[in-house]
């Protein structure tokens, strides 16, 4: 074990929903402190992969090792082990809309760690400041915030207990290009600041280039390419090339048969 130890190791991970084989044997490692970005089209299995690692979906077969411990069995202890050191930024924010912004950010502190409300609020306001939000925002409800602010609050909630692992599910989807860049910068800055290992899924290439140490492309439930963000433009893989350039024509045919007959 002289190699830098992998924080997360995934081996032969498969998951099917009925006849729909979403993950078909995923093998991938993420080294401690590195940021992996998984790119891929809609329906390629990105979200299912992320939720499997998080313990929200139970995989059919395969291993998910976090710090060397296999958590794919999905026991309560496994889930607690993963959740206890993980923060996740959800695609839609997934803020609790019955609670104030600061109670959202401090949710784990208040309800899992049972810290007093005063201290939790201070910590929450500190986290909000780290993502560029004023203390007054803390007393608002999530529904009173713009999309970009909701993403920031989601990020603040994810980092509030200094997690070792951070997950980002389409962090820039639904934001304008400038706000996307702001969120990307915040992600890079915060991940570096707390030294976390990060896994993001996205189909926003600008975001991938910015936050990745390494990029992997998922296609039809398998990793078909890995490389650095600088290799994206000369990957030598026609599928990656098609995806990066955003072309309808190429080896990847979008699956539309569930809705309409193939016209070509």
């Amino acid at each position, binding site marked *: 074990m002289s190699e830098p130890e992998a924080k997360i190791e995934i081996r032969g991970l498969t998951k099917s929903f009925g006849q729909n084989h979403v993950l078909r044997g995923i093998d991938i490692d993420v080294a401690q402190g590195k940021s992996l970005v998984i790119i891929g089209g809609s329906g390629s299995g990105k979200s299912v992969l992320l939720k499997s690692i998080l313990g929200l979906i139970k995989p059919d077969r395969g291993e998910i090792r976090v710090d060397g411990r296999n958590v794919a069995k999905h026991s309560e202890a496994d889930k607690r082990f993963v959740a206890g050191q993980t923060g996740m930024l959800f695609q839609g924010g997934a803020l609790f809309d*019955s609670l104030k912004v600061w109670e959202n950010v401090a949710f784990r502190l208040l309800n899992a760690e049972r810290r007093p409300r005063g201290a939790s609020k201070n910590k929450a306001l500190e986290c909000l400041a780290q993502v560029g939000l004023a203390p007054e925002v803390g007393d608002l409800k999530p529904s009173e915030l713009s999309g970009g602010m909701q993403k920031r609050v989601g990020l603040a909630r994810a980092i509030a207990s200094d997690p070792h692992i951070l997950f980002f599910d389409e962090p820039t989807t639904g934001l304008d290009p400038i706000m996307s860049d702001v969120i990307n910068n915040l992600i890079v800055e915060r991940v570096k600041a707390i030294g976390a290992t990060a896994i993001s899924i996205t189909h926003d290439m600008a975001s991938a280039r910015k936050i990745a140490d390494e990029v992997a492309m998922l296609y039809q439930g398998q990793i078909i390419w890995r490389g650095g963000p600088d290799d994206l433009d000369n990957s030598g893989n026609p599928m990656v090339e098609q995806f990066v350039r955003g072309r309808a024509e190429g080896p990847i045919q979008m699956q539309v048969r569930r809705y309409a007959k193939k016209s070509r």
Partner: protein
Amino acid sequence: MNPIAAIGRLSLDVLGEIGRISNFAIEGAVAALTPPYFWRAFFVSLARIGFASLPVVGLTAIFTGGALALNIYEGSIFPNADAFIPQILGVSVVRELGPVLAALMVAGRCSSAMAAEIGAMRVTEQIDAMSTLSVNPFKYLVGPRILATTIALPLLVLIADIIGVYGGYLVSVYLLDIAPPIYINNLIEFIDAEDVTSGLLKATVFGFLIAVMGCYYGYRSAGGASGVGNATRTAVVAAAVSIFASNYVLTSLFVDF
């Protein structure tokens, strides 16, 4: 196609659903009674379900009591109907109408609200988010709601009993010209503590069922806004039906043949 197969499939579906709800109810009761406790969520639920239901439960009770007094007066074949009004009205309200009507009103208000709120949290990934924050969403969302409704409903029914009997009093005294002492004396003489406690026991069961149905259909809802709509509707219907069914069972236990 095959009618017998259709009947079989329907029976299996219904029995399967009853089984899943029963499991959910047991897990929910365990979640409500074992740590970790979420007191803040509990008191929020208690205020929303108990305190905020007071007006609607009170209005239901006072009009029902008044209408009942008129009906008993009108339907009586005895010359001295006055004496029977508080007796029949008291027993009807305390044993049957108070618990059932209050439970139905609370089911309409709260089963639907619980199903909609938890369902919306499910489809917007808030429940997943809670798991990632090391808080068991079942314990946080279901436990406090079940505990709060089970405690709140008997208290609401006690208030509904008093208001319902008072509605009967108002109609009897001011419309039917019955002397207040007759109404009060006959009422006290005829109603036992057991009548009241049997009604409150019913209310406890109804409260539990209301919360279980609201949480169950919300928790397993899927498919966006229409899924939440379905969950809401099904929760209210299921809560109402389970209230009537369990009311019959409980009544048959309390009555000596």
